[in-house]
């Protein structure tokens, strides 16, 4: 059934249909609509057999999720920005203990200066927390990714973040088709935790490991993470077969001319300029790039649906040896460049590709189609700097009017 829905509502309903046992969250913009909707569903009974827990902080939200997951429940939470950082310690901990919690991150900038609008610096800050990070390009994918996230996380014993751009997606209304409860019931295996607190088979979870076993513990977790790409790909494939639409995957290919998502699209050519991006900016690029194609600029688009694990192989295959790679980056490593650029560069190390970083849309700055087109044109002309900031204003930030705060004498 196609319906007109806000992204947050779509996510909330899909999560509810995944039948979590415990949902625990602390409100923070722009995640609020998701948890509001879930709390309402818990009250009305639409969210059956689920405990909705209101807590006093994101730190406790993640902690409750840890407890719930370890006690044998499918656990879900959502946060953003400062909230993600506030729970950071527990985020790492959940991964270290192998608890397959699913968390929506309504991506938002990190202060200071405080800023409630969208970019990717929150999730990027926790990119090495040991979680899967799946990025939604639009609200349909945002909703669908949660089904895939639960499936993959639970198979792997690795928690998963579903990242969706704050406001741009969470608060945007689209025509969507949600997976029904029955469909999800048929698709998603019942929750069968690998680590569980069971009175009949008691275990100790969360021990200390000394120098003699810490390295090996991490190594074995690394091996598990290496399995993740295949698991995500497999569940995405199953999802496509079951639901008849694309969601998830690793590196997302787009048809050269229509810029429609197309898993059959050929790899780029050596002479192409390939734009690599994650999240909702892919939609902007899908709109902006056809005009360039028509101008004769050999531009191609590759999206990343999975950032963790980073699909280096799938990315290289999609890039097909393209010489010019432009990464539209929504998060910044100060003094270095875009965060995603770093991972792309590492994936392309040893190839002849030149990777350029365009830091765009920080703190909710609109990413204009024209600006993106300009970047691609200049890249094609060989004029794009290794690191550029999209639509950077000259003169920096406005200076406070001198004397405006002076106390009247």
């Amino acid at each position, binding site marked *: 059934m196609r319906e007109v829905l806000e992204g947050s509502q779509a996510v909330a309903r899909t999560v509810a249909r995944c039948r979590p046992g415990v949902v625990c969250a602390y409100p923070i913009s722009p995640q609020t609509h998701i948890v509001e909707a879930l709390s309402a569903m818990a009250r009305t009974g639409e969210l059956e057999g689920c405990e909705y827990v209101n807590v006093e902080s994101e730190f406790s939200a993640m*902690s*409750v999720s840890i407890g719930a997951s370890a006690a044998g429940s499918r656990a879900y939470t959502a946060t953003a920005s400062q909230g993600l950082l506030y729970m950071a310690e527990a985020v790492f901990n959940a991964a270290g*203990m192998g608890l397959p919690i699913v968390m929506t991150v309504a991506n938002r900038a990190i202060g200071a200066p405080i800023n409630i609008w969208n970019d990717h610096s929150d999730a990027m800050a926790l990119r090495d927390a040991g979680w899967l990070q799946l990025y939604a390009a639009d609200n349909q994918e945002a909703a669908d990714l949660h089904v895939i996230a639960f499936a993959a996380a639970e198979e792997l014993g690795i928690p998963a973040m579903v990242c969706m751009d704050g406001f741009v997606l969470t608060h945007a209304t689209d025509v969507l088709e949600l997976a029904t409860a029955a469909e999800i019931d048929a698709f998603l295996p019942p929750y069968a935790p690998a680590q569980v607190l069971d009175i009949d088979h008691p275990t100790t979870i969360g021990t200390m490991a000394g120098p003699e076993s810490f390295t090996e513990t991490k190594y074995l977790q690394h091996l598990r993470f290496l399995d993740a790409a295949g698991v995500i790909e497999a569940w995405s494939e199953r999802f496509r077969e079951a639901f008849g639409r694309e969601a998830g995957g690793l590196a997302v290919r787009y048809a050269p001319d229509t810029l429609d998502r197309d898993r059959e699209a050929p790899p780029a050519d050596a002479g192409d300029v390939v734009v690599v991006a994650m999240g909702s900016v892919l939609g902007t690029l899908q709109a902006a790039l056809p005009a360039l194609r028509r101008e004769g600029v050999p531009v191609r688009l590759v999206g990343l649906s999975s950032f963790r694990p980073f699909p280096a192989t799938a990315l290289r295959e999609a890039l097909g040896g393209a010489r010019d790679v432009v990464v539209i980056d929504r998060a910044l490593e100060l003094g270095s460049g875009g965060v995603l650029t770093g991972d792309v560069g590492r994936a392309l190390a040893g190839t002849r590709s030149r990777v350029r970083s365009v830091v765009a849309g920080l703190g909710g700055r609109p990413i204009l189609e024209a600006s993106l087109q300009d970047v691609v044109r200049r890249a094609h002309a060989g004029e794009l700097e290794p690191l550029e900031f999209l639509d950077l204003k000259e003169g920096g930030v406005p200076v406070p009017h001198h004397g405006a705060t002076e106390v009247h004498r």
Partner: protein
Amino acid sequence: MTTVHIPFLQTGSLAVGGRLLSEDERSVQSHTDRPSSLTKGHRACQGCAEALAARWVMDTAVEASGGRLIVANATGCLEVFSTLYPESAWKPPWIHSVFANAAAVATGIASSLHAQGKDDIRVLAQGGDGGTVDIGLAAVSGMFERNDDVLYVCYDNQGYMNTGVQRSSATPAAARTATTPAVGRAPGQAWGQGKSMVKIAMAHEIPYVASATPADLRDLEAKVRTAMSIHGARYLHVLVPCPVGWGSESRLSIALARAAVQSGIFPVVEARAGELTDVQRIRERVDVTEYLEPQARFAHLFKPGGEDALARWRAVAEANIRRYHLLGGES
């Protein structure tokens, strides 16, 4: 108190057991088949009262729940000394997440069990004073405020002992720690207003709040049993002498807890829904020096210049005795 009254049998109610007692008069700890939830092979320091109190608390909780108990533990001595991989000294299902979140993890477990329809499985959270009174206070308070079905137990050894004896907000005034050295004009922990976790818990008006010490096993067991008979948020604060952190002889761990109570320094109380319902009366009153002097962290109180601090401690004990009617009389 809800203690079972033991008839006069050589030792009355104060010893752990007694050959003359009937089965149902015996403490959990006196049973040969007690759970020993925290068992041998743990790496607590010699004379660790936290290890002792944790076994007492948990064994009683295990018995009270019919073996249906799950435990969440904060980071701290208790966690470190009991679970160095691949060894664990715990018998019940047990989880440690991080320092500040034991209460919230417990809430998560309780929520999960409720969602699964397993309300007969009980949840106990525990941590030290650092994980409770300091860094974990928000989560504990949140658990209280929501009245989650969790028994939270704080083993208060009055400092960050695991990291080398630094002060916490539960460190008593004038006590020397690694971060409140006994030097300068006001040696040791500053004379602030203190931070009574028991009163904080009472202020939440949760169903049950109590304090206890390893100097009275039966009282402690009775309180755990009472707590386990109630659903909702419950709090038990146990003073646990720490030979290493307090600079006391390992054999004195019980004796110091006793002196803390008998001097009036540590009130042993019980409260329901925010109201004080009972206090343990002082049996043989002792001067505060009986408690303070065997502890090297208070050694400077017994040197020239220490008189003021000693006098202030006497005043603290007096105030407690007055406030809680520890010597009897109206309460």
